[in-house]
């Protein structure tokens, strides 16, 4: 075949596939906005699920995700610090780094199954704690990875300057290295939060769901995503509309956090 023609064909196909990709993004966002906005009323935000709103679901989802963040961030950042600042070239460091990297892609439903086995079954009831723990397990490897990578970008000279000033190792790590990597680490935390706030599979049989407003984490806990899954499959129009409203709000939150994360790092890379 003619080389130039072949070249043209391939380049055209590539451009078309790019347009197809963008097309799907807009298709999804437009239908979501259209269905979502037309289904949202003031009562959507002020009522609980039992009265046809999502107030308790938003509070529940954020409570579980925030609690997961509170647990996963210190552990993840500390683990990242160990890998980059103390671990050196040890075999063990490489093993942990690679395994944690692999864990970021573990199927989320399996994490739900795992948490069910030791936090739901023994207590005989779905509970909010289990949901939080499942989300924290999803979040942890992502935070370890970003902390590790961001600390790696901090120039060696900064650490050497700290040593020259007579700083002890942990002071150098906390006050110089971590400070220098602050923006990157914060962005990593934001993006991983955006990821877990939209998770459904790990919550299905850990927190399950609750129609009523509750802050009692030891029982079934309200979840926005689990509710969307349930509502969408109900046959009545009102449930479906609520599912669209909830989906629109969830996507808006997730994309907003993502854009904030990108905006914060815009000048960095």
């Amino acid at each position, binding site marked *: 075949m003619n080389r130039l023609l072949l070249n043209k064909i391939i380049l055209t196909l*590539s451009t*078309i*596939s790019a347009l197809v*990709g963008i097309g799907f993004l807009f298709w999804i966002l437009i239908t979501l906005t259209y269905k979502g906005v037309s289904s949202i009323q003031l009562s959507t935000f002020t009522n609980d699920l039992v009265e046809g709103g999502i107030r308790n679901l938003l509070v529940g989802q954020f409570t579980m995700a925030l609690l997961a963040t509170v647990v996963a961030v210190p552990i993840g950042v500390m683990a990242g610090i160990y890998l980059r600042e103390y671990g050196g070239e040890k075999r063990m460091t490489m093993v942990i780094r690679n395994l944690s990297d692999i864990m970021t892609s573990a*199927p*989320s439903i399996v*994490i739900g199954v795992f948490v069910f086995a030791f936090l739901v079954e023994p207590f005989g009831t779905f509970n909010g704690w289990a949901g939080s723990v499942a989300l924290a397990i999803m979040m942890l490897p992502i935070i370890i990875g970003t902390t590790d990578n961001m600390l790696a970008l901090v120039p060696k000279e900064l650490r050497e300057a700290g040593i020259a000033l007579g700083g002890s190792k942990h002071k150098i790590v906390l006050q110089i290295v971590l400070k220098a990597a602050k923006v990157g680490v914060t962005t990593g935390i934001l993006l991983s939060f955006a990821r877990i706030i939209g998770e*459904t599979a790990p919550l299905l049989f850990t927190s399950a769901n609750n129609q009523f407003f509750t802050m009692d984490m030891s029982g079934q806990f309200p979840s926005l*995503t689990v509710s969307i899954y349930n509502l969408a499959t109900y046959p009545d129009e009102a449930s479906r509309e609520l599912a669209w409203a909830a989906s629109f709000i969830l996507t808006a939150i997730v994309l907003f956090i993502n854009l904030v994360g990108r905006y914060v790092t815009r000048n960095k890379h």
Partner: protein
Amino acid sequence: MGGRLFKDFSLVAATLSLFLLVGIFAILFSYAQTSMHEFGFDFLVIDQWEADEDDEGGVFGGFIPIIGTLLSTLIAMVIATPLAMGIAIFLTEIAHDKIIKPFSIAIELLAAIPSIIYGMWGLFYFAPIVQSVFGGNGVGLLTAGIVLAIMIIPFMAAITRDSMNTAPDVLKESAYAMGATKFEVIKDVVMPYSKGGIIGSVILALGRALGETMAVAFLIGSVMSIPDKITDPTTSIPVLLANNFAEAQDLELSSMYYLALILFIVSFALITVAKLYFIGKKK
């Protein structure tokens, strides 16, 4: 003193993630024991999932959900791979500098949309289209596969783009100087150079598609039967877990753990191969 404590704590935090992984294996494995003793490796080929009438025991085999998982993933890969390659080529070799940035952000936003949203949208907007074009009743293997493809395209495209970007300009320029067309440069310079990253991205996307739950749960039909046609409804491992895990008891529950273990081992193996052998060890 404080320094020692700080170091020790960071070591504990780092090893915790190791324990988590071992813990997941150990728990899945021990809870799957009942089913493993009952069915052994035949579990993989038994095409029944039925409890006895007295609710004690029954025959539970993983064949149908395993086949459903493999087929829906296969459809997704066949559709997603060429499109993702096209997008990566567009972003690295074709697009004007001004377009690259917003376009990349758009693709990454597509990857950030929660999977349950893909499921909802797929069920109400995409399934009817599949139904009118291919027949069937809307939900089934094909619909699940296509929406799964849309989900993994941005992910695959992003990694492929990154590895294509590592091909040195000097090499590309010398090929152009020899009179090569853009496609020849991509095929003979960029592709060989970034082969590892591209294969790695495909395997990673494969791992992600195998374990995807929510989008598929809306779209595959959740029926325990072997599909005859591509539009037939069936089920997959994550979907079976999502819908039936909470109500299962005894042998059935143990069989669910067995399925979860299989899924975990397969995706773990795929991701390990992709990350360690193709995308390259992290420094």
